[in-house]
């Protein structure tokens, strides 16, 4: 089983040179730590910045410079600032190539649920609905099962959904899966030491296994 950092590390392999990327809160934020130095990519913060840098040193903290998670940040060379309408014009217009975000549930059609649990206080969808409706490539970082062992990869989402038919790839603690309109979840890689049988058992939605499924390799 992968740790959260290993999930992030595996997702980082999906990043291509020259991409503009939006990273959600949680595991997706960790992906930034694993993007190889030779790749030139730009991270977008939907509150109005392209070119997120590392967290600031104590003496460089600026309350007027935060990311979408409200954390203090810095800018890199070539950064640009803009307003919220421009930021989502960028997202909606398909200019951000890759969105990586967390999920509570994903369906075999690629629907995603990650914003609301009935009966619990609803905090809001923030920019998630815009992001999943717009990006050409959406990768989800999530745990394969809930704490009580229920699969989160379902035939249909049971929770209120954030977007339909949008998730292209899922990296969980157990596996890498692609979403295909016909084949459902297509198993591409197994976490080290995790069997195809275990993944089958823990995937409630339609799972397609084609040929040998390789184990993930971490350098």
């Amino acid at each position: 089983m992968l740790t959260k950092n290993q999930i992030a590390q595996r997702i980082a392999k999906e990043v291509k040179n020259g991409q503009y990327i939006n990273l959600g809160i949680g595991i997706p934020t960790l992906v930034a730590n694993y993007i190889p130095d030779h790749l030139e990519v730009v991270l977008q913060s939907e509150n109005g910045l392209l070119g997120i840098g590392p967290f600031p040193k104590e003496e460089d903290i600026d309350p007027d410079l935060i990311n979408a998670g409200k954390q203090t940040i810095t800018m890199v060379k070539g950064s640009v600032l803009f307003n919220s309408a421009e930021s989502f014009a960028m997202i909606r217009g398909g200019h951000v190539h890759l969105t990586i975000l967390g999920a509570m549930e994903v369906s075999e059609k690629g629907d995603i649920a990650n914003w609301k649990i009935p009966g619990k206080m609803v905090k809001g969808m923030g920019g998630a609905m815009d992001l999943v409706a717009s990006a050409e490539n959406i990768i989800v970082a999530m745990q394969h099962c809930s704490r009580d062992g229920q699969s989160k990869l379902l035939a249909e989402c049971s929770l209120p959904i954030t977007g339909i038919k949008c998730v292209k790839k899922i990296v969980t603690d157990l596996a890498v899966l692609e979403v295909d309109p016909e084949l459902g979840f297509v198993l591409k890689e197994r976490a080290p030491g995790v069997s195809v049988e275990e993944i089958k058992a823990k995937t409630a939605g339609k799972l397609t296994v084609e040929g040998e499924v390789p184990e993930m390799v971490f350098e």
Partner: protein
Amino acid sequence: MINKTVKDATEAVADIPSGAMLMMGGFGLSGIPENCISALLKRDINNLTIVSNNAGVDDFGIGLLLKKHMVKKMISSYVGENAEFERQLLQGELEVELIPQGTLAERVRAGGAGIPAFFTPAGVGTEVAEGKETREFDGKVYLMERWLKADFSIIKAWKGDTAGNLIFKGTARNFNPIMAPAGKICIAEVEELVEAGGLDPNEIHCPGIYVQRIFQGKDYEKRIEQRTVSN
């Protein structure tokens, strides 16, 4: 050049009535109109509807207005960590309308730009789409969303001039410039107010035509929600 200067926050918000629809700039606690919020707290008004991406925290920002029960309804994309907000919501003392952040930004922009409705893919197939018209363009389904306007938009900038032209700093820009034209009256508080001509016309983020009242604020706290540092 037309002079939009008022004395201070007290004068700027003096005529906001109970039941008014307000837009307030800021993302989290960054770029919020601190002086106007303080001045509003001293007014004896209530039943406000507030359009703001977030709802502040318990003891700062819009959270202060909530605590004083001045707010009837919040229109936001994310209401975050705010215990009093949650209590009022569960008690039925407060209404909340949650809108995808990009849709919120575009509805505000449309309100200022004279666009009564537009189509967006955000929220298609979700409960956000309930009761809304959907329509297919070039093989993709979109929702029709309406413009959003307010009686007053209350915003905060870094620098401003007496003609109402504004420059923002960092990510404190966020919703501030797009809310200016969406309010019948836009009140702008700035950290530094200069004479008309003191700002480069080419560097202005929000044209003064959208701003009806401007003043230089003071004592900015600029509270940080998530102080994160690297080693």
